[in-house]
């Protein structure tokens, strides 16, 4: 029973990683850049939801859409102001800008909300815990909501990229930016839309993360951000199902590692697994092998 409970905890944590990893992997696939500020967008989303509930008296059902809206605007603004001017620059310049953006967001949050951790309200997810096996296994409401949210997001996103015009345009830009332009696709607008989607997902992840681990600080997003990036690479960066598989596996490994091997070494185990996978499969679990053009 203990194992099952740990496993569910792992899937739940992994689901949060997966939702964050989707933002990383979509932006990487389409804009060919690593947006290291993505983790901090999560933190902003959590703060907005926190303020909505705590100070602005906004009903819980509206707090999440509000956080998504703010994060979407933030993501699109970051892309337009910081990354778009660098479209022709070297990837190193973009990477450094992204890291700078990450620190900027953290420090802005520090200015606005202060360094003291906030206790994230539990009012958001009111679903009662589910009792299974005659009360032997208790599944917290947040776990159920997180896993369900992940499944819904996965289905919506897969359908979106497969069926819609914008989704197909994203796949084109991801494969060949020049050819996409020749089809009449506005590449800048497509990249903006990708940031919008990734950032809205980050807001959801922020709320889910802080509902499960209710300590909210300006650095709250950075560690989950890095782990989600790891998950994206683990699953094969650029691949949407890869982000999902990578995220969930990472969550399971982390929780089981902490439970059965060592609590202190939990994170180290996560990264060790990443290194092992990359040694055997450099493109990640579901990544496509890179074709070098001759």
């Amino acid at each position, binding site marked *: 029973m203990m194992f099952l409970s740990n496993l569910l905890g792992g899937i739940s944590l992994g689901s949060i990683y997966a939702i964050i990893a989707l933002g990383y992997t979509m932006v990487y696939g389409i804009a060919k850049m690593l947006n290291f500020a993505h983790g901090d967008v999560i933190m902003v989303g959590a703060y907005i939801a926190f303020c909505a509930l705590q100070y602005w008296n906004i009903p819980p059902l509206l707090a999440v859409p509000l956080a998504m809206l703010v994060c979407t605007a933030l993501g699109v603004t970051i892309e337009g102001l910081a990354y778009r001017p660098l479209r022709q620059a070297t990837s190193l310049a973009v990477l450094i800008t992204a890291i700078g953006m990450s620190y900027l967001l953290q420090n802005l949050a520090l200015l606005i909300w202060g360094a003291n951790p906030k206790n994230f309200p539990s009012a958001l997810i009111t679903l009662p815990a589910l009792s299974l096996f005659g009360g032997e296994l208790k599944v917290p409401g947040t776990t159920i909501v997180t896993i369900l949210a992940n499944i819904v997001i996965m289905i919506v996103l897969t359908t979106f990229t497969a069926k819609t015009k914008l989704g*197909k*345009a994203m796949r*084109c830009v991801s494969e060949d930016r*020049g050819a996409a*332009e*020749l*089809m*009449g*696709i506005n590449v800048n607008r497509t990249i903006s839309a990708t940031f919008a989607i990734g950032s809205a997902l980050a807001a959801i992840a922020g709320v889910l993360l802080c509902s499960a681990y209710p300590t909210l600080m300006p650095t709250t997003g950075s560690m989950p951000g890095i782990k989600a990036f790891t998950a994206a690479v683990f699953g094969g960066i650029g691949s949407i199902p890869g982000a999902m598989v990578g995220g969930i596996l990472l969550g399971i490994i982390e929780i089981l590692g902490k439970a059965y091997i060592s609590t202190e070494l939990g994170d180290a185990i996560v990264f060790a697994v990443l290194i092992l996978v990359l040694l055997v499969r450099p493109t990640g679990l579901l990544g496509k092998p890179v074709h070098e053009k001759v």
Partner: protein
Amino acid sequence: MTNALTPMLKVDDIHVYYGAIHAIKGISLEVYPDEIVTLIGANGAGKSTTLNTIAGLLKPRSGSITFEGKTISGTPANRIVPQGLSMCPEGRRVFQQMTVRENLEMGGYTRPQNEIAGSLDEMFQRFPRLKEREKQIAGTLSGGEQQMLAMARALMSHPRLLMLDEPSMGLAPILVEQIFDIIRELHSADVTVLLVEQNAQMALSVADRAYVLETGTISMSGPAQELLHDDAVRKAYLGN
């Protein structure tokens, strides 16, 4: 075949740079409605750069490009396509991970949704091979099939002027013949064609007029038949 007095496409003294490299040094050319015009020349002469500049993928540092009376130099590629000018790029560049049908649909990206089905049927009629492969992933097609897909995809935007960049590259001789047959057919279907080719023999035999490019400038131009029999051209580009 120069049956109209105003050129459909007019390129006027364009200069294009790659960083510090002066790739195109003042090229001027004209394409009249219903013509097939070809640019021939050695590797690195600037043929593809010229086409990419007209298509809007590159910006000329000076000079102007006019299409049907409208200046298009400086307009991004995605806004040139809906004006009736499309390009089938060098190396085909079909979307490898998408199906044949999806590739064609993307070609019609700028057109109203209700016109796509009709154009798809048209393409499947012209390229029956693509109909057979409709649901196949483009990356699994043969080189010739991918070239056909790339051409059909460029036609999906309903261009009045189609630019083809090295359509015969890397194809077996029998397929090269097929591709050139298609170019002739297109021409009879009222599409004006600007063709870039390394296969000068084939290009000159299909074209009305030709320009010869040499290191970023035009060294010669004239009716294709004349160039085909010109000694200097034969020596430099036809190998005899």
